[in-house]
């Protein structure tokens, strides 16, 4: 057999192996969560707050954490979006191939690699300086810092995929850079921008370390931006830390809820985006 054929076979084998590894890890995680969590999951868990203090009891639910997580990650994603899109457009339209654009990209790549506990500690310092205590607002700030580099780099890549001819067409009609950016490039890159937002949201809602000091924890539902807010990752952490197997099973149920939220939001937003992407040039 010719060497090039052997090469081909080796690479196909590697591809199959990597697919198996990725899919089986996903299946194992989901399997464990479903297998241990599903029996513990019940309606009370979804619609009640914890009884027995910090999830230690077997009664009550995790509604405080579900709502807390949605508010935290939703707020942080909105905040990060408000900052990311302008940065990504700036990088592309005003700092293209200039040294400060490259500096911003490098900084974002470094930020991406920073552990979330560091964001938590940084946001905590910021909050002390501002006179804030552990609160929903503090958590939103910390999570938005964590989401910012992920979202911005994702958007940057999506915008880079837009064909230069499309921009030229808009310029040649007398459009300014801003008009071209907002009316043409954003429209054309909506699928990629949405992926960036979802990626950042998923990362934000699943993060425990950055909200530990900043959002705090509570058994109550979040009612104000300045009150502490519970979150699903911390609920899972507390439940798993107890010595009671029945409560530990409730941790898996909480994880199942968290996975369900991310999956549902992802499906809904893709469905909604279908309408927005109707005119995208492929």
């Amino acid at each position, binding site marked *: 057999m010719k060497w090039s054929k052997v090469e081909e076979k080796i690479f196909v084998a590697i591809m199959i192996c990597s697919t198996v590894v990725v899919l089986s890890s996903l299946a194992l995680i989901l399997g464990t969560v479903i297998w241990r969590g599903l029996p513990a999951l019940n309606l009370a868990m979804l619609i009640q707050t914890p009884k027995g203090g910090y999830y230690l009891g077997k009664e009550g639910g995790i509604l405080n954490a579900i709502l807390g997580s949605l508010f935290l990650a939703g707020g942080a994603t909105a905040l990060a979006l408000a900052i990311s899109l302008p940065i990504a457009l700036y990088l592309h339209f005003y700092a*293209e*191939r200039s040294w400060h654009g490259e500096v911003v990209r490098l900084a974002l790549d470094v930020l991406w690699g920073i552990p979330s506990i560091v964001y938590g500690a940084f946001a905590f310092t910021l909050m002390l300086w501002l006179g804030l205590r552990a609160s929903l607002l503090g958590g939103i700030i910390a999570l938005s810092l964590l989401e910012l580099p992920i979202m911005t780099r994702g958007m940057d890549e999506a915008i880079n995929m837009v*064909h230069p*001819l*499309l*921009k*030229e*067409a*808009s*310029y*040649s*009609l*007398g*459009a*300014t850079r801003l*008009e071209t950016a907002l*009316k*043409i490039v954003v*429209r*054309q890159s909506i699928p990629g921008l949405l992926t960036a937002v979802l990626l950042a949201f998923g990362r934000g809602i699943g993060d425990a370390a950055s909200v530990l000091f900043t959002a705090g924890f509570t058994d109550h539902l979040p009612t104000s931006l300045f009150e502490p807010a519970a979150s699903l990752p911390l609920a899972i952490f507390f439940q798993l830390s107890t010595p009671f197997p029945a409560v530990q099973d409730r941790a898996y149920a909480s994880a199942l809820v968290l996975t369900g939220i991310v999956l549902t939001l992802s499906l809904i937003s893709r469905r909604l985006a279908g309408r927005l992407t*109707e*005119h*995208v*040039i*492929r």
Partner: protein
Amino acid sequence: MLSDRKSDMSEPHIRMNDLNVWYGSYHILRHITADIPAQGITAIIGPSGCGKTTLLKSINRLLDEMEGTRVQGQIWLDGMNIYDNGVDVTEVRTRVGFLAPKPSPLPMSIYDNVAYGPRIHQHDHNSRGSKNQDLDRIVELNLRAAGLWEEVKDRLRSSASQLSTGQQQRLCLARALAVKPDVLLCDEPTSALDPIAAQKIEAQLRELKKERTIVVVTHMLRQARRMADHVIFLWMGELVEAGPAMQMFAKPRDGRTQAYLDGDIG
């Protein structure tokens, strides 16, 4: 030079004076001085890489958008040097439209593609009105001018990307016309099209030249012969010869023009 002809009393529409363009350190256009008369079709011909597209894109300052490009010299458009400091580049591009070789529909409906230009300029022309009926009228008028109306009038709200390549190019033509340019620059406008679609574009341009100045870059000599009223021949970044098409094709003055027309070079 075209303007030297005493019979032509009208001023040239576009006058290029000692135009030089560099890509980085590469001097791609050298000392171009030429006139483009009002109305009619002026064809810029020459072998590939001679700077035809660069010359074309310098006329509406699309070169500004390319990194590392430097322009020296003047281009006068109705008595205004478009490279003067303080000239509003979006105004230049509104007056000088551009049709790219490959159709590039915008990511929106057929209607919105044509309405895109008028919409972004509507705050400048409030007197002309920005009402929906006006926009409907503008869209219809320009789709007709581009010879596309009959084919799309029942599906104006569907995506521009669903049109065939030839229809997309005529849509791009309608879109360019909708901002009412005095000059239309066409960069090999039929090179991506099949012969029948190409014929339609050529026919529309011939119709449009009655009211507008049209500049066409083409590498197809036969197309230049069919369409052009005036010709500019470029060779290695230099202007070799410019003049009325009849004279250029029948009796070129320069040996290089003759050689190019005979197919000996290029």
